[in-house]
């Protein structure tokens, strides 16, 4: 007996609902092969195929099917269907970094929702709009600069994102949709964070946290704690940040998310470095290192070694510092991290000098190294460079809150 397009599509739907997108895709594609006269059914298949590919991170394929859906819904004059297709297409284009096209799609989604007085649709379009501008802002010039100090183009995109999130909030509050409010507060908080509005970021993430607790959504709760920790770092409130990171760590462990657990340990390590509590910093960086090794995350491992090298140096334990500096160098070479490799080489050479000095009984060693600014830094020659590098990342985190030696 022949299986109909509809039956195949229904099975695809069922499989996607349980999260088996691969199998779902096979059924939807088989359904298309069989074909159907019913264009609403075809639209639903295209749309779900697009979403399945989106979940599978195959965005080119997702784009293809959401495009098919958009063309089809336009052809048959299905406005609601067109609004949904536009929304999905916008999200996909955003992930692909095609922000200008994504904006056009979001606008279409919003326009149709307004035309048919669909409040839920309007809110969803506004949320997508915010996400597109947030991603656009981050894509222009992210690395190197610090929050609140991006080029004007970036700040403009981020301000637009905040406006769209605020507009969304008005509607979802009216609708009493707490889940949607939670999502928007989270992203609005991250937008304020990037804009350098850290107090506003805290206020938003506090709301996000409250709603996450209402729903018993521990993943969202963990995200909120982590984002709160980040904002408190920039406010210079390191102790408060540490408390939030500890809650993040607790939840990451409960959720058995090792990658997030590693990240929380790394954040805690950095926070205790800012607090100049190097023993605790080392404890957390070691925890981070172990997980990174377990997960075979060489980049994370390199970062841990670098942090450990710095913390041991700060404590004056140069043997351990050397061990980690060498390991850092080895990993940077392996991962092709050129700037990391340069940093590691300088650290190794600095430490070689320190160790050479402390082990040497030959006074000529000292005289050979006279040009090093030894006197200025007492027992830790050329620490200035190390400290400035150690603080490179942290200084960016706390532009004027730091009082660590440089």
């Amino acid at each position, binding site marked *: 007996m022949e299986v109909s397009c509809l039956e195949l599509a229904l099975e695809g739907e069922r499989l996607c609902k349980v999260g088996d997108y691969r199998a779902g895709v096979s059924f939807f594609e088989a359904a298309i092969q069989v074909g159907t006269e019913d264009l609403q059914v075809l639209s639903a298949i295209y749309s779900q195929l697009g979403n399945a590919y*989106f979940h599978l991170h195959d965005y080119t394929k997702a784009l293809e099917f959401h495009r098919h859906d958009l063309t089809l819904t336009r052809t048959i004059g299905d406005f609601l269907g067109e609004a*949904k297709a536009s929304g999905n297409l916008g999200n996909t284009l955003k992930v692909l970094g095609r922000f200008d096209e994504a904006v056009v799609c979001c606008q279409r989604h919003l326009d149709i929702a307004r035309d048919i007085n669909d409040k839920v649709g309007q809110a969803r379009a506004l949320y997508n709009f915010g996400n597109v501008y947030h991603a656009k802002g981050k894509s222009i010039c992210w690395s190197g600069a610090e929050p609140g100090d991006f080029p004007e183009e970036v700040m403009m995109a981020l301000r637009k994102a905040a406006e769209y999130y605020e507009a969304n909030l008005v509607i979802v509050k009216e609708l009493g949709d707490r889940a949607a409010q939670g999502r928007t507060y989270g992203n609005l*908080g991250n937008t304020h964070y990037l804009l350098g509005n850290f107090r506003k970021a805290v206020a938003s993430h506090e709301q996000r946290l409250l709603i996450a607790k209402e*729903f018993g959504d521990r993943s969202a709760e963990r995200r909120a704690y982590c984002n709160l920790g980040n904002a408190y770092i920039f406010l210079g409130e390191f102790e408060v940040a540490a408390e939030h990171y500890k809650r993040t760590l607790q939840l990451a462990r409960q959720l058995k998310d090792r990658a997030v657990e590693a990240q929380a340990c790394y954040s805690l390590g950095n926070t205790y470095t800012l607090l100049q509590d190097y023993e605790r910093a080392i404890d957390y960086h070691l925890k981070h290192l172990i997980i990174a090794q377990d997960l075979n995350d060489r980049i994370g491992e390199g970062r841990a070694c670098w942090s450990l090298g710095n913390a041991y140096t700060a404590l004056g334990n140069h043997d351990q510092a050397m061990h980690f500096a060498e390991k850092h160098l080895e990993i940077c070479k392996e991962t092709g991290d050129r700037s990391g490799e340069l940093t590691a080489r300088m650290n190794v050479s600095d430490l070689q000098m320190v160790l050479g000095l402390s082990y040497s009984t030959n006074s000529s060693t000292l005289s050979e190294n006279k040009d090093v600014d030894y006197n200025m830094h007492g027992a830790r020659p050329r620490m200035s460079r190390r400290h400035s590098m150690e603080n490179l990342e942290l200084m960016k985190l706390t532009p004027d809150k730091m009082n660590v030696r440089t």
Partner: protein
Amino acid sequence: PQEHQEEAKSSAVASSQIFHSDGGEMEPETMEIKSVSEYFTKMHMGSVMSRQRG
């Protein structure tokens, strides 16, 4: 879990941004969902309603 029920109309896509150095962890995207089964349920309901009216 409750939140997922609330989000029946959307689907959550996990954010890949774990590291705060990326500017904070984002909330999931909301995708619009179309469904063949819902469409047929509506069609069926529609025909029942029109029959009742007639």
